[in-house]
């Protein structure tokens, strides 16, 4: 098997392992179903482009988180050139199909309050909910460990506040 085919095979098996992570990150940054499909494709494109350069001094999950979060933040900032590129793929390919099961009310509420956070805070809270340590979060985000813990406290406070408001509505 030539090198390119081998790499494709590796990439597809990597996608199988990380498909949940990709859909989760896309879910916290994008709510519209069609837009979310676009975002997932954009993440896959960037993962594939960076795949040959993967540096194993970091765990592959750290690498995947960084790419998926970077792409998602850029996506929501509506870079026009990316939009054009996305349109090229939209009509012909649907790379990842997902039919998420109905979410319970509390989970919906959680997504709703996460959505009120700033883009970087969304990533931090998601990593926290995924039970990553402060050190891992700092590694992914490029923040200091102290900064991560300070931010986490602030985000938790904001979430608590948003929960109160959402509950009372």
């Amino acid at each position, binding site marked *: 098997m030539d090198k390119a085919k081998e790499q*494709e095979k590796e*990439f*597809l098996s990597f*996608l*199988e392992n990380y*498909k*949940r992570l990709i*859909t*989760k990150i896309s879910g916290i940054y994008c709510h519209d179903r069609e837009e979310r499909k676009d975002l997932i494709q954009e993440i*896959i*494109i*960037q993962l*594939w*482009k*960076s795949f040959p*350069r993967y*540096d194993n001094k970091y765990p592959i999950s750290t*690498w995947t988180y*960084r*790419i998926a*979060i*970077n792409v998602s*933040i*850029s996506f929501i*900032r509506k*870079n026009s*050139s*990316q939009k054009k*590129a996305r349109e090229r*793929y939209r009509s*012909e*390919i*649907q*790379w*990842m*199909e*997902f*039919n*998420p*099961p109905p*979410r*319970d009310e*509390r*989970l919906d509420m*959680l997504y709703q309050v996460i959505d009120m956070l*700033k883009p*970087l805070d969304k*990533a931090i809270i998601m990593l926290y*909910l*995924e*039970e990553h340590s402060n050190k891992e979060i700092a*590694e*992914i*985000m*490029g*923040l*200091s460990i102290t*900064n991560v813990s*300070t931010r986490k406290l602030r985000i938790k406070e904001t979430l*608590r506040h948003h929960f109160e408001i959402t509950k009372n509505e």
Partner: protein
Amino acid sequence: MEFKELTEIWKQSDMHQDEAIKVNHRLIKEVGLNKIKTSLRAIQWSSIFEIIIQILFTGFFINFLQNHHAQPAFSIPAALILALIVFNLLFEGYRLALFYSIKTDCQVLKAQKKLSRLKKLEIFDTYSLLVIIPVFTLPFLIVLAKAILNWDLYLLGTGWMIQTIIGSFVVAAILVFIIRKHPNKKLRKAIKFIDELDEEKL
């Protein structure tokens, strides 16, 4: 709601996700992966094209300066335009270097800062045209007429020059007024985001 409870809710959402997500291996293999290889890089061709054009212009103006160095009426406008082109060359070079230095697998904060800087540079580039065009039109016309047709536009008198300069400033003033009245949303967003990132650094 306690945070522990939130983590539990979040974890529960994972349970049925795997079956719900299907990766289209065949489509990705047959269509996607090959296409990606030739995709997004094309965006920067405009910058590369701009750099090539500017290098050609630099050669043209250096040559013109050599031939007319004893005639300040022509060498001064040419030197002005040359300085502008050199600045633009450096600017485009920096922008291109910044673009290629952005890797999506960088730490999130680092990558987003670079992206924001790139966005600001793009917007600055567009806006700078509003000043460059009116200010540099007259020297450009003088140099171009001399270089290509060997015409001395100074012989036409100063009336048209004054009109061009006044006209340019009026146009620039109107443009500045419009921009101030209707600030670019993208620029505001980019600046806001950079401020937000600066806050993160602490």
